[in-house]
């Protein structure tokens, strides 16, 4: 396997390992831990740029051969899979029995279960269905010293022992390697409909307010500005509304009627409905979260309240203008997320402007984190934004789980 595929920042790994079982994965980690080599875990490499570039990096461990479905009892609405399973595989296995887990991972055909969980991925449908972490009912992990440890189980309600799965979700492979994840599933809604509407100038604020007041809530509601290739729809001056309706046919039809009148009242004349290809079109929108324009773009995620998206978008716009970068945004009306992609036309211009932008945004958008940036620039950027108050506790956690700093040292918040 080519080491180049596993380059991080300017580092190449000395070895690339591809364990096929959890026991092999644990043995590899133990060996690294005992010989002082630093290991970085890889899934589908869709979010590998999350976090800082590791301080040390000797071994790449590619988990994609851990790809078995371990246990699936559709009548229990639970499923257990190895971490290297692709999200698209999970989706397909579950869809065949009318179920789903709302992970909302971008590039689902490549993204793995383990990577999606480890990255703490947050999708737009979480306002409706809950977060990925809330669907994880159990995990089996390998710790840096090779210990294999289980948390939770295969039941949907469980308070037996600490819920360590919560700790592993979002830990970006710095505490343990997720080897297996167990999920509870949901019945698949019978109808999905994507409504796409260009927003004429001056209609955005009213659109947002009217959507928040809808009696039948959409599964997701995004206002996209830019991202022309991913959205595949004519944008209005104020962006393009992309709204996903899910439920029974009657409910979705009723919601569509209500939506049309709410948009009409907001001065939005046209709404295109996508029915048969709704899932595909929505997946394209999710892809936009991590889609790059080669080495001349980077993307941030800012988390916040639905009521304060506008000042955050304005702050991105201000700093982007000051540094002559083009800004594209996805405003998540329901969760309050703001996704901001910044780009320049020339790679050379982008490199200098991106660093300046990242420096300046530390005051206006201290909490924003980088989702994706050109590999060569990452070392000079602040991937995490301002660290939270619990940083000292996080350092202690790291020292308890990975005292030798075997797992991606330096990749995490505050240089953990």
């Amino acid at each position: 396997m080519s080491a180049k595929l596993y380059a991080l920042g300017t580092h190449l790994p000395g070895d690339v390992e591809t364990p096929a079982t959890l026991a092999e994965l644990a043995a590899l980690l133990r060996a690294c831990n005992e010989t002082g080599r630093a290991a970085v875990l890889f899934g589908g490499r869709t979010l590998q740029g999350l976090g800082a570039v590791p301080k040390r990096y000797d071994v790449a461990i590619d988990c994609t051969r851990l790809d078995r479905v371990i246990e699936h009892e559709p009548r229990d609405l639970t499923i257990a899979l190895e971490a290297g399973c692709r999200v698209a595989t999970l989706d397909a296995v579950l869809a065949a029995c009318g179920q789903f887990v709302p992970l909302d991972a971008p590039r689902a055909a490549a993204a793995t279960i383990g990577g999606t969980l480890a990255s703490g991925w947050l999708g737009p449908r979480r306002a409706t269905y809950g977060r990925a972490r809330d669907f994880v009912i159990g995990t089996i992990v390998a710790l840096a010293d090779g210990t294999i440890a289980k948390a939770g189980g295969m039941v949907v309600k469980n308070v037996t022992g600490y819920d360590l799965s919560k700790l592993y979700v979002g830990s970006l492979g710095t505490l343990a390697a997720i080897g297996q994840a167990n999920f509870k599933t949901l019945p698949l809604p019978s109808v999905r409909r994507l409504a796409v509407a260009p927003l004429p100038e001056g209609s955005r604020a009213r659109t947002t307010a009217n959507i928040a007041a809808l009696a039948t809530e959409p599964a997701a509601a995004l206002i996209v500005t830019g991202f022309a290739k991913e959205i595949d729809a004519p944008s209005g001056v104020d962006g393009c509304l992309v709204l996903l309706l899910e439920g029974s046919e009657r409910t979705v039809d009723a919601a569509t009627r209500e939506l049309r009148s709410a948009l009409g009242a907001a001065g939005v004349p046209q709404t295109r409905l996508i029915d048969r290809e709704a899932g595909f079109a929505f997946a394209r929108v999710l892809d936009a979260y991590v889609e790059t324009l080669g080495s001349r773009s980077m993307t941030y995620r800012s988390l916040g309240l639905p009521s304060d998206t506008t000042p955050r978008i304005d702050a991105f716009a201000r700093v982007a203008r000051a540094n002559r970068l083009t800004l594209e945004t996805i405003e998540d009306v329901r969760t309050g997320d703001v996704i901001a992609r910044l780009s320049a036309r020339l790679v050379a211009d982008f490199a200098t402007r991106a660093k300046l932008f990242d420096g300046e945004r530390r005051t206006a958008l201290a909490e924003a984190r980088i989702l994706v940036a050109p590999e060569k620039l990452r070392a000079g950027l602040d991937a995490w934004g301002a660290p939270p108050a619990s940083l000292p506790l996080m350092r202690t956690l790291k020292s308890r789980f990975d005292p030798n700093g075997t797992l991606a040292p330096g990749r995490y918040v505050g240089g953990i």
Partner: protein
Amino acid sequence: MLTVAADRLRDELTLALGPGGVLTAPEDLAAYAFDAYSDARLPVAAALPRDAHEVAAVVRIARAHGEPIVARGAGTGLCGGAVPVTGGVVLSLARMNRILSLDARNRIARVQPGVINLDLSRAAAPDGLFFGPDPSSQRISMLGGNAATNAGGPHAFAYGSMSAHVIGLEFVDEAGDITWVTIDDAGYDITGVLVGSEGTLGILTALELRLLRTPRAVRVCVAAFDGVEAASECVSSIVAAGIAATALEIMDRTIVRAVEAHYRAGYPQEAGAVLLVEVAGESPDVEASERAIAALARDCGTLAWRSASSAREREALWAARKGAAGALGRIAPNYYIQDATVPRTRLPQAIARVEAIAREHRLPVGNVFHAGDGNLHPLLIFDRREQRQLDAVVAAGHDILAACIDLGGTISGEHGIGYEKRETLPLVFSADDIATMERLRGAFDPARGFNPDKIFPSGAVCGEVRTPSPTLSHA
């Protein structure tokens, strides 16, 4: 603790909290020696702080004296989680009972830990919102305790347990420092691991909670079956069919009769078991779901089907269901409630095993449980004045847990491990699994001053410490 040292500890606490904030007289401390599982010894003192700074002061003082700290909400816990097994300071959060803010636009409430669960939903109701987790104790239990135990309730089936609703919290750590964390913080999910940690990692002093929109349509129905197994089959088929019910609760005849004697809610007393079904959501969907569930109930041999015709009737059915344990307490000398959870398709088998075990130990059993989640609540009825029965209830309890684990389940779905089930934890988890959990604990509380005798097995079994045993007579 030596009298002199105890006096000094009490003096320091009184200095920090004022005379109204500390209880030291044995007659006052008696109220802090027990919870809904058992009683133990008196604590050295009970501290009643009014804010996080006072909590921090209590933690520092107790730590300096090497005394354990046992946090306590309303004391409704069923596993001895709030019992001061080895004395120390009981820290009651009951006076911290204010709703700090209610943000209807963003559907977020900030509360102190002593706010009563139901009071939050009442406060949010004018904005068309409610709080999801609704343990049966919700009229008295507090949100801090709910969070510490990751409590569930009948609606956990649809909305998830506490951990899916706590989006941020403030806690006092072992050093007496106060920290706010949220699930959106960059870094490890400190919020997620504190919820459900049963007071062993830190003291929760404020919670940020997600509120839900009140559904536009709600239906509550009751189906009668000739036995619990048939009712369980029905639940398994509803879940498997993917019908979106918001609650699926089963009560057997023993429980229904106890409940009807007190509440007269209209549950059929002649049936072997009743299934309480709630569907909520958009009006056409709710009607369709009710029809589909009624059809499945017929397939499973339902004896009768009734749909509540008014909000009042719905509330009466729910009040009776949530008061089931208390109602049984009025007619049984004592009972011991368990909380095992099994995969949902295993419910009928689990129930059959529970009944066989009860017969074997010659104990009457009542079953009232969150069937949709596979979460059993067998209530073993006994008289604690009779040693044979006391021994039998402990043995039967153990057998039931072992049977549920054997069916792929676990020992607690929502009550917690506490003191009661700490020695049972190794039935579910290996030494490595438990050692990994201890790593987490070691990061938060290396000296093990927070609720030290809970969740984890004692290692060497100490007869003296194992004195608590189920004493429940009124829940």
